[in-house]
């Protein structure tokens, strides 16, 4: 169980941070392109 719980939470933190970074990057890139178009 110990060998499972720790990697799970570590993985959850790493993956969540990665996905949030991806979201921020893509949404901001699109936001910037909208500003430049205007």
């Amino acid at each position, binding site marked *: 169980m110990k060998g499972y719980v720790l990697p799970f939470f570590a993985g959850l933190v790493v993956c969540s941070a990665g996905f949030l970074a*991806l979201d921020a990057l893509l949404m901001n890139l699109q936001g910037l392109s*909208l500003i430049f178009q205007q």
Partner: protein
Amino acid sequence: MMKARPITRYTTLGLFGLLVCGLGIMFTGFDLSGVLAAEYAPAPKLTAADYPTIAGVNSRVAVWIFAQLHLWFAAFVLAVPIFVFIIEVIGMRTRDKRYDDMAYEFIKVAITAYSLTAILGGALLFSLILFYPHLFNYLAVIFSESMFYYALLFFAESAVLYIYYYGWHWLQGGFRKWVHLTLGLTLNAVGTTLMLLANAWLTFMMSPAGVDGAGVFSGDAWAAIHNFLWNPINIHRFVANIAYGGSIVGAYAAFKFLTAGSKEARAHYDWMGYNANFIAICALLPLPFAGYYLAAEIYAYSQQMGITLMGGIFAWLFIIQAVLIGTLFLSANYYLWCGMGRSDGAKRYTKYIKYIAIVLVGAFLVWFTPHTLVLSNAELKALGGPHHKILGPLGIMPAKNTAVNVMIIFTALSFMFYRRANKIATVNWVNAGNAFQVALFTAGIINIMFLGIYHGYFTNTVYKVAASIPQVLTTVVVIVGSITLDSFIYKNAREVAPLHWGRIPGRAQYALFLLAVAFTWLMGLMGYIRSGIRQHWHVVDIMRDNSTEAFTPTLGYAANVVSVAAIIFMAMVIFVFWIAQVSSNKTLPAGYWKA
């Protein structure tokens, strides 16, 4: 076994490269040889008298059915050589003859279908010339060169296909196999170019280019080909064709499985059905994104066409589309779950299937929840409007995007369970690897839900649409990441026991039939929508349709026409399957021939 020397391999590939370059020059060179100085007439302004009536035939329905039947067969015969080529490569790399035999059997089914494609293409051409002569003439002037090259490429396609098929057993081993593979690649290059040309003609009718406001052609054929919707349709059709081709050969394998007389034959066709379903799923997973891109581009080109597409008369056909797409996902998953019975180790995973089924059904329900309900006056009054207060929010695109991404992720999960069913991992970090995989799925699903809910309901419309891109990328990261991790976890894995090919219930084969039928019907209905959004225009805003049939029929009428066409197509497909079976039967009539 003799291997081809590198020099001969490179020579073969070099020759192929030259051929591709030649095609490329031909393709991009239309405008170079175009008759730039010629005078072109504006698009004709027609009256009802300009549309011939022949033997009381409804011209629109005739063209509609011939075009649809031609398209179904064309999708099939263009897709089959793509995965036949890939299977042949796998056979060459692994030197497992079963792959080569399976590839040959797939192309054997396609060869009869190829003749029917050509016959139906001819019927479509004649019906267009007879019933819509002015439209055909207008398009033929603009696309004269591409139509000419299309005819040449058609001959090339036929020649390569016949050498590829009839030379299969002749071109075996060493250099000959490389020649055969090169023929397969050439066949695909020519077939795909044919599709791209035909796509240009139909997308020109939706988003005309290379003409002025009156329809006067500028002489630049490349501009007319490379119109706004050309590439979105190219991508969507290319992916969809592969999924469709996989589903039809899956139905063939199911037909052969159910009629097989021996255990060996059942095992063979079970394996074939599994591979066909795998191909169909691989292409089905990116298909909703290709469709979304096409729809977004239609909106970008013309808001009017976009609103007609999903917010107007055709919106309810999208509900049927959603039901059919849900059917595709459910039947593909069901087939995988049944297929786990081939492995003795599957029982470790079967307990999770019910949860996948619950999620898939839940996502399916969100996927086809309509935005605006069709209600009677009394119902409207009772509800307080056409939107249900709880279910209404599920009718908009962010909810659909979230649902389809979840469906795709869980289909990938079904596939991963199937892959794992017969393996036992031997690496010592298996628990940590599994935990990380679960974390990846959990974080991915939370992110998809967050993007769908937050940007879909709490930000402005621009972000609703924009959020679909990170949603798709999240899905891609989850699938690619987990499959990559899986391949490391199961490196040097032990097998539980040899797989029992053929140990699958008969009902799983009906899931394969359902996949093929749902795909066919779906393509017919969506094809009608794509064409129908032109409404009363032959060529949007350029050439008006003034025939007596220039109206949008009721959805019931359209669905009936598509259903009749689908039944005709299925009858023809059964004929193709039967012919493929007959060709391997032999009768030895005793005493008939002279000794």
